[in-house]
């Protein structure tokens, strides 16, 4: 190590002119480090500044901010009440629907790409997923509210009629709202929007399954499906869980499309065909007309959302990384 430094020391003056090179080198490496640290700084600043801005509302409401379901920013009398439970519920229900629809499709596509697709089909299949990712969310929202929702109402009516006599299910598939803007529509749109990320992560995870394991399953006489359930899934389970969690994070944070199709009602109901609202959607819908504590409460919603998505994303990344390390460790 020390010999290398002295050699460099001896050769340098002719090339870069004295100790200036050292100074530039040091400045440059510090500068790149500073830009790297910018990421950490921004994340910390988001947490600190938004919490501070939201403090009046959070302090007013205390824990009731997340446990109360009354959201009344402009009451006829008395103080405004900001309980966001209904919106947390809306975020949870719409994300859950999105996962139930989106995850099987995404994993299906990922399996198709890694196990089934002939090479010439693979390129265009990847392109479909990339194009889905490229369409801006507001365009999905526009399509959802003006094209999809009015059509889905008929489907909802039909499902409602079919399940009306079944106890339990008849409260989940209750009376549909006339515009079609509901938890279910939001879930469907979200499902479409999480397909790209869940597919691409699942695909990465599935492609780490060693060919030897697959060949071994085939050699034992497994069908293709038995090979997938016996060799591919056990090997990639952790990574797939991570992919699903990333999808969940994306679904929870999605704002614009959801705010257009979810209906905009403060509503806790098991009926997925009823209108509701989600945390992110409430913020964009009401931010323009808010002042004072009301604005603080909306920013408070953002803080809760930020904390939830950071935790989910962090956990998902760690799960995916651990799965990858385990696979690589086994392979080498």
């Amino acid at each position, binding site marked *: 190590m020390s010999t290398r430094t002295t050699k460099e020391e001896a050769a340098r003056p002719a090339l870069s002119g004295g100790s200036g090179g050292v100074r530039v080198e040091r400045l440059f490496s510090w500068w790149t480090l500073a830009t790297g640290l910018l990421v950490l700084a921004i994340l910390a600043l988001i947490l600190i500044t938004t919490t501070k801005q939201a403090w009046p509302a959070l302090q007013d409401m205390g824990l009731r901010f997340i446990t109360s379901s009354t959201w009344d920013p402009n009451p006829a009398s008395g103080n405004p009440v900001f309980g966001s439970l209904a919106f947390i519920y809306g975020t949870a229900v719409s994300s859950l629907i999105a996962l139930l629809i989106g995850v099987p499709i995404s994993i299906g596509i990922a399996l198709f790409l890694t196990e089934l697709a002939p090479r010439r089909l693979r390129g265009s*299949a990847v392109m*479909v997923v990339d194009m889905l990712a490229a369409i801006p969310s507001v365009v999905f929202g526009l399509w959802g509210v003006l094209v999809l929702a009015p059509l889905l109402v008929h489907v909802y009516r039909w499902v409602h009629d079919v399940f009306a006599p079944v106890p339990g299910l008849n409260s989940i598939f209750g009376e549909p709202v006339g515009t079609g803007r509901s938890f279910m529509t939001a879930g469907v749109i979200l499902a479409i929007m999480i397909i790209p990320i869940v597919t691409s992560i699942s695909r990465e995870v599935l492609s780490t399954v060693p060919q030897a394991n697959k060949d071994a399953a085939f050699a034992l006489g497994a069908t293709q499906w038995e090979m997938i359930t016996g060799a591919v899934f056990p090997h990639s389970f952790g990574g797939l869980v991570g992919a699903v969690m990333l999808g969940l994070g994306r679904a929870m944070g999605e704002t614009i499309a959801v705010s257009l199709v979810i209906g905009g009602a403060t509503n806790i109901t098991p009926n997925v065909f009823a209108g509701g609202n989600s945390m992110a959607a409430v913020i964009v819908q009401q931010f323009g007309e808010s002042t004072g504590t009301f604005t603080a409460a909306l920013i408070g919603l953002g803080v809760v*959302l930020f904390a939830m998505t950071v935790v989910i*994303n962090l956990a998902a990344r760690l799960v995916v990384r651990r799965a990858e390390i385990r696979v690589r460790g086994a392979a080498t």
Partner: protein
Amino acid sequence: MTTTVPPAERADAGPPSLRRSALAPRRRITNRIAMVLITLALVIAVVPLAWVTISVLARGLEIMSWQFLTEDIPNSYRRHGPGMAPAIVGTFLITGAAALLAVPLGIFGAIYLNEYGKQRPLAQVIRTMADVMTGVPSIVMGLFIYTVVVVVTGEQTGFAGALALACLMLPIVIRSSEEILRLVPDDLRQASLALGARQWRTILTVVLPAAISGIASGALLAIARAAGETAPLVATIGIAFTVNPNLFSGQNTALPAQIFRNASQPFEGAQERAWGAALTLVVIVFVFTVVARVVVSRFAIKER
């Protein structure tokens, strides 16, 4: 399971037909159903893609015209007819400013991760947090910039929106650039260092030029994604009906914000403009994505 296959047939047909012809019906049918479902998943994903594309094209072309691209936005949602120029100008200015902020910073961040930090704990933390930052909801970025810029300056401006978009782009640029820098062969670095160049000079004159088209492609994809972001703009740029070329003063507008605003209106005129704006936005995003692809394929050819 083992006894169902007679040896004679096995020798005849070889391993593949051993699976197909001699399986117990239940296993064969399960397998067939599963394979059909897996293929169906792709078909299901094509449906919304095709449907959205066709809707945007059909409804957008109805209103698309030269006037639509060049005239101001009518200040009544009820009024029919064209005008989206302020939003088009706003989208280009705001996204452009965001790119100018985020792309250079992101590239330097990537240089730190790949050339200096490597596997050190700090670099690993930054890497993970950059991944986490890509998952931060865009509305939260909007609220953040609202808090630190709009509240402080007391004014909603295009530049505030650009800052919010830059925050969204930064981690994407960092991670995609790092992937590309990792592909640059170590031989190049060693050759340059052996000639006596310092590390900063090696990075700027050898490593970056070798990786530049890959980095540019990643940056273009990040720009395309930022151009379609709506939520961070709602809280930061306000609303404008005429072209505002000044990012630093006065409220502004952008295509996604206009789509959102007009789509939530019950009036036909507003909805027509929303479709027109959607078509314009999709075309812009599409062009950026295609250019990114072309840049990448050029790069790949040069490599060989």
